[in-house]
């Protein structure tokens, strides 16, 4: 499928008018970077400001510098037989990651970017799962983290996994040899899917990467003068594909800072955009919301956001309220109404699938609430409750085909009706690493009555098309998306159960107010709680969730054993539990609820303990 669509693209040469960039020019992303290094030489590829502070001189990495460092690293990887093998990248945000990533591409190794476990209270547990699943041959990191990484590798019994601290490492660029990559060769594995216990790595090929960078350029009207920038983590698909690799595709540059710096002081993001005249910057919805709530007028003195053309808002549900509030708050500082760029995509499609049309504001569609619940975009009707949906924009036919399909019958749904979003195109991955059965189901779906069209990706997201705009309305799968992160209910339920033998089954799901809220319903035997009352047991659960999963845990209900429904085969019925909860039909022994969620549910009775 991938090869076929690529061939079609060669014929159309759609991006020629924008600087002559075409996917067909390059067989691999490595080849593209080599060509850019040749053309751009000493021009800046990346500027990095750890804390994004105004007036501070950034660290710089030129195209030539990137090329040299990457070749030195690639020679080391090739010398150790790591061509075609997986190489884990454990770095904080910074220039070292960029050199290591391109080093892997140059060596023909398969990069596996992951969050550095020591940052923000993360643990090695998840990366251990990745090392095992990906069959990693080496870990690249920084000198200051190498002792901890080596101790972890030894402890887990990964004795054959090499570890190299790449800062201060001077390889021999002249010893590098072109591995002669093809479009079907893997560029990297993106581990954003799957639970901690069973991580799933999306296989992104060089062809996928080239195709999606072309798609992003088309959607955001990028060219050599585009300045990318922002604070997204480099191991996250939106940061990696959008901020880190797009400038290499364009032959332009990016100005980057660390996520923690943004979270501490959100105005630093805006300062960075203003000072470096950034034109394209992406973030999940929560970040825009945070700027509205936390950035004061005093912080905004001298801020000029007029260079910002494209403010991508994706990776979690796009809120119409947030778009309006952000545009209103920052209009006096040069932010333009048509800069907000709601978009849709996922690691399985490399990144971007759709985005706002150029030159006009995002489409906001007020629909009838009852109609939407019944699966239709209709209304609004007089005096009936409505909801406002933000369109995730248009799909460029050169890049993707999108269909709305009934997830049960697999028949295509007509315009304006909600169904599962199915996608195909050159950016769509061939599947998850070593998951043939899942891949047949997720990446090999066929539309009933149109089987000959070939395989589609089932996104697990629900949405509808209307006037060629894609509206994402919800999710079919049970994954929860908060603060731009994917939370797997199974992981949370397992962690809670492991807290105390008194805890039984649990059901974890999300409910929606003006933002997404995690709800934890967990069975407990009050008599078995050693020295704890229900209130302190609830606090323990909340502390665990906020600390281990880094999401707000404002909604915990402890319930009597037997309350959490299972199917006859023992599978937890999270969707049913969610419905019961929203209907006020769950009677807890003890509960804490966020005020917004409490409003949603109305009142409910507490069951007397006894």
């Amino acid at each position, binding site marked *: 499928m991938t090869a076929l669509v690529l061939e079609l693209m060669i014929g159309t040469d759609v991006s020629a008018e924008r600087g002559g960039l075409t996917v067909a020019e390059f067989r691999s992303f490595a080849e593209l970077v080599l060509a850019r290094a040749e053309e751009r030489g000493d021009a800046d590829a990346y500027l990095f400001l750890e804390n994004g502070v105004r007036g501070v001189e950034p660290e710089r990495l030129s195209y030539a510098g990137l090329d040299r460092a990457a070749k030195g690293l690639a020679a080391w990887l090739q010398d150790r037989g790591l061509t075609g093998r997986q190489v884990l990248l454990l770095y904080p945000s910074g220039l070292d990651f960029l050199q290591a990533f391109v080093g892997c591409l140059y060596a023909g190794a398969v990069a596996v970017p992951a969050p550095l476990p020591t940052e923000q209270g993360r643990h090695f547990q998840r990366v251990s799962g990745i090392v095992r699943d990906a069959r990693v041959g080496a870990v690249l990191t920084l000198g200051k983290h190498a002792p901890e990484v080596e101790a972890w590798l030894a402890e887990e019994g990964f004795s054959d996994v090499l570890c190299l601290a790449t800062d201060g490492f001077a390889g021999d660029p002249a010893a590098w040899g072109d591995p002669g990559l093809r479009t079907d060769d893997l560029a990297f594995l993106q581990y954003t899917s799957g639970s901690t216990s069973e991580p799933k790595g999306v296989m992104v090929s060089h062809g996928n990467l080239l195709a999606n960078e072309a798609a992003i350029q088309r959607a955001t009207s990028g060219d050599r003068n585009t300045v990318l920038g922002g604070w997204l983590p480099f191991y996250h698909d939106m940061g990696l594909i959008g901020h880190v690799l797009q400038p290499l595709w364009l032959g332009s540059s990016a100005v980057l800072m660390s996520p923690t710096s943004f979270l501490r*002081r959100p105005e630093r993001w805006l300062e960075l955009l203003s000072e470096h005249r950034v034109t394209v910057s992406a973030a999940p919805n929560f970040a825009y919301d945070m700027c509205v709530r*936390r950035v004061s007028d005093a912080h905004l003195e001298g801020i000029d956001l007029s260079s910002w053309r494209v403010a991508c808002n994706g990776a979690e549900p796009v809120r119409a309220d947030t778009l309006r509030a952000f545009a209103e708050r920052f209009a006096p500082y040069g932010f333009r109404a048509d800069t907000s760029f709601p978009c849709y995509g996922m690691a399985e499609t490399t990144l971007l699938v759709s985005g706002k049309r150029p030159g006009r504001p995002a489409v906001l569609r007020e629909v009838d609430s009852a109609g939407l619940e019944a699966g239709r975009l209709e209304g609004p009707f007089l005096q009936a409750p409505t909801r406002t949906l933000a369109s995730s924009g248009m799909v460029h036919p050169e890049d993707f085909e999108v269909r709305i399909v009934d997830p049960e019958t697999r028949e295509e749904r007509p315009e304006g009706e909600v169904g599962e979003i199915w996608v195909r195109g050159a950016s769509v991955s061939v599947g998850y690493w070593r998951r043939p059965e899942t891949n047949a189901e997720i990446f090999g779906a066929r539309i009933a009555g149109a089987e000959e069209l070939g395989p589609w990706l089932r996104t697990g997201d629900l949405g509808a098309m209307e006037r060629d705009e894609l509206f994402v309305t919800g999710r079919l799968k049970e994954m929860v998306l908060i603060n731009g992160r994917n939370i797997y209910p199974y992981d949370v339920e397992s962690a809670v159960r492991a807290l105390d033998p008194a805890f039984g089954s649990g059901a974890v799901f999300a409910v929606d107010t003006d933002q997404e809220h995690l709800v934890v319903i967990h069975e407990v035997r009050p008599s078995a709680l050693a020295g704890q009352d229900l209130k302190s047991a609830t606090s323990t659960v*909340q502390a665990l969730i906020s600390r281990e999963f880094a999401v707000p845990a*404002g909604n915990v209900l402890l319930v009597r054993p037997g309350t959490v429904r299972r199917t006859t085969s023992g599978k937890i019925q999270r969707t049913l539990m969610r419905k019961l909860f929203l209907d006020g039909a769950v009677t807890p022994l003890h509960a804490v609820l966020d005020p917004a969620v409490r409003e949603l549910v109305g009142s409910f009775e507490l069951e007397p303990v006894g």
Partner: protein
Amino acid sequence: MTVPTGRPATVREHTVETLSEWIANRISLYLKRPADEIASNVPLAEYGLDSVAALSLCGDIEEDFDLVLEPTVAWDYPTIDALAGYLVEELRATVGEA
């Protein structure tokens, strides 16, 4: 819309009471809850404090009190009372050094 900062005047004036009020106001902003609903002796995690909010709090403490803290303080001192007590001590130590 403007965002109030509620910046206390000088370091010497800080007490557990003024700092508790300051923390409650910040938490109220991050977690979208009324400040008077946040009890000073209840773990902040119960109100939904997560690592994003903990980093926000550290950033605001740095901005208003010139004190650089790691987000783990929000778990080491899990309530407003505990956190305010810790901040008072830290601020006194800073003044002593100056």
